[in-house]
């Protein structure tokens, strides 16, 4: 399945979109490398779908240009772009059977012998025996695969996926994520995937662009974004972060020392998104799974040099592989800690005095001038 046209990167240069006085997408520069699996991640209304539709040609940008490889396509109508979309609602043609749905794009381009290509594509998505069915006779997951097949059969330079898994239940969604990833590796086409599901974006994509309020907040590999968020929005939207408001006590060396309530915490200067200055404020972040928990009576067992915070367990929930604790601490009223259920300490119940400790290397610093709660619970918000 090799492509005859060398694709080239997708380049968005200063594209923006206004609807009247509302700005859906602020001027945006983005280069999506050829053959990559790229995710646009954000809450609804953040401009990710609008960005995707501008690449597809379904929306015309208010400013800026869209290029595919060397070719500028900003003002080309969708039917002239070598780009195909998998729509959120699938948008399968209800009056055509699965075979004709998949053959639609090929026929429109005047390709006479579509049989082999359509059958191969239906095999790829494991729907060979459903060719004669109508879309409404298939399950949601099968319809989703038809939508993928219908787009991919055209060997587009770029495949755009608009929340393609949104309508599926969790188990099927996990399965389809792996399936899409497999197909992408197999066909080697650039995939641009829009989603509000951070787990989905991280599982599938090579590069994730986190969008918020019509802007890209941060762009990078999933692990990079997760470990080194540059803003509170990214820290909170991608997984969970414990953010502690702290005062910088010592700065300038390779480590920064900060203080919050009675705790003294260290973090590498390289992991600060701002340049901390002594006496200034800093938001100190640590992921819940990096933290270890011991009962206050065992405080001496904590190795020297680790960041330590005292607190009281206010809630715990057992979820099988791990237990999630919420700790009330002087530095932050709701610290989250995920502990693997390897050896469970029976004393760690709500009300127990505990000591939280973690490797200072796992601590990151954010600019304190931001909203500490940005990105929390924004998933359900409409705009």
């Amino acid at each position, binding site marked *: 399945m090799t492509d005859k046209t060398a694709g080239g990167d997708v380049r968005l240069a200063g594209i923006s979109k206004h609807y009247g006085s509302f700005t859906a997408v602020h001027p945006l520069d983005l280069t999506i490398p050829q053959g990559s699996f790229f995710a646009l991640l954000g809450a609804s209304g953040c401009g990710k779908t609008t960005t995707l539709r501008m690449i*597809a*040609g*379904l929306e015309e940008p208010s400013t800026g240009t869209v290029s595919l490889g060397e070719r500028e396509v900003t003002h080309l*109508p*969708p*039917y*002239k772009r070598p*780009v*195909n*979309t998998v*729509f959120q*609602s699938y*948008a*399968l*043609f*209800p*009056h055509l059977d699965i075979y004709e749905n998949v053959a*639609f*794009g090929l026929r*429109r*381009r005047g390709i006479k012998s579509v049989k082999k290509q359509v059958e191969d594509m239906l095999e790829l998505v494991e729907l060979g025996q459903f060719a004669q069915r*109508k879309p*409404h006779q298939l399950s949601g997951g099968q319809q989703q695969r038809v939508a993928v097949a*219908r*787009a991919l059969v*055209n060997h587009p330079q770029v495949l755009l996926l608009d929340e393609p898994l949104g309508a599926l239940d969790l188990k099927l969604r996990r399965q389809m994520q792996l399936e899409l990833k497999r197909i992408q590796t197999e066909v080697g086409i650039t995939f641009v995937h829009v989603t509000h599901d951070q787990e989905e974006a991280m599982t599938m994509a090579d590069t994730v662009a986190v969008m918020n309020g019509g802007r890209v907040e941060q762009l990078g590999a999933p692990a990079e974004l997760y470990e080194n968020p540059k803003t509170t929005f990214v820290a909170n939207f991608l997984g969970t972060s414990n953010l502690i408001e702290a005062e910088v006590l010592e700065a300038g060396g390779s480590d920064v020392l900060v203080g919050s309530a009675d705790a003294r915490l260290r973090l590498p200067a390289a992991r600060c998104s701002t340049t901390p200055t002594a006496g200034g404020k800093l938001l100190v972040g640590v992921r819940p799974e990096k933290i270890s928990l011991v009962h206050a009576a065992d405080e001496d067992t904590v190795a020297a040099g680790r960041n330590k915070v005292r607190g009281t367990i206010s809630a715990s929930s057992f979820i099988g592989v791990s237990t999630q604790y919420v700790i009330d601490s002087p530095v932050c009223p709701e610290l989250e800690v995920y502990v693997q259920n390897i050896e469970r300490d029976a004393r760690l119940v709500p009300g127990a005095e505990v000591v939280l400790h973690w490797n200072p290397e796992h601590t990151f610093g954010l600019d304190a001038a931001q909203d500490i709660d940005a990105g929390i619970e924004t998933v359900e918000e409409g705009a």
Partner: protein
Amino acid sequence: MSAPATPAQAAVAAEPPVHRASLRKRLVPYWLLLPGILWLLVFFVLPMIYQASTSVQTGSLEEGFQVTWHFQTYWDALTEYYPQFLRSLLYAGTATVLCLLLGYPLAYLIAFKAGRWRNLLLVLVIAPFFTSFLIRTLAWKTILADGGPVVGVLNTLHVLDVTSWLGMTQGDRVLATPLAVVCGLTYNFLPFMILPLYTSLERIDTRLHEAAGDLYARPSTTFRKVTFPLSMPGVVSGTLLTFIPASGDYVNAELLGSTDTRMIGNVIQSQYLRILDYPTAAALSFILMAIVLIMVTIYIRRAGTEDLV
């Protein structure tokens, strides 16, 4: 010991009312059907039987009519009035095609492009129903009057030369010609075409248009391959709602036509009310019904709308 027995006793005691309730429940659909069935029985089935019996009677108004199973009436009616039958089907067919050609773009516009004007436009479509059918048709008599502005314009544009060549008009007259009758039919039945078309177009998910565009279909191809096939239920019901009443119509031919444009409706009307030949009138009605029924059945089979979602 008595506690466990109580539910069982209660169940036994409650059994007969439960049974009666379920019976009553099963009868509910029939109760709901009853008014409609009674209505149809009195105002449709009984008149039909009466007409059927009239069509095989012989006699005269003075001597009274007797059922003589005289089926010859059907044959006589058909051989005598087949030109009017053919004319009815031709006029109704032409009017239906014109309604489709005029109505489709309008329904498309209302469904996809009208935005906030949608409801206003729909009200305008049905606005003519606020005045009587008869008055509106009479108004067309004025519009198409000899020497009137419409005729003048059509004459200047040489449209009348073309319609005259087609046998639709004579000389520089429009009134009392086939064109006038077809125009009247088209006008009067247009809303019956637009409304079902609108309903089926409006149901089409506009994302399908985007999907077709995304799959290399230019707008005209999208219309041909996606929009039009999906609007077929509306096309079928619109054409039926136009063609069936138009083929039995007599008001338009009566008011806008002449003796040369008489449709079968006019014949039936005059047989009943002027010539008072009830058997022939009844036979003509049944023949018309049969023709329409056969044509509609073939049409629906061909259109294959049951295949559409």
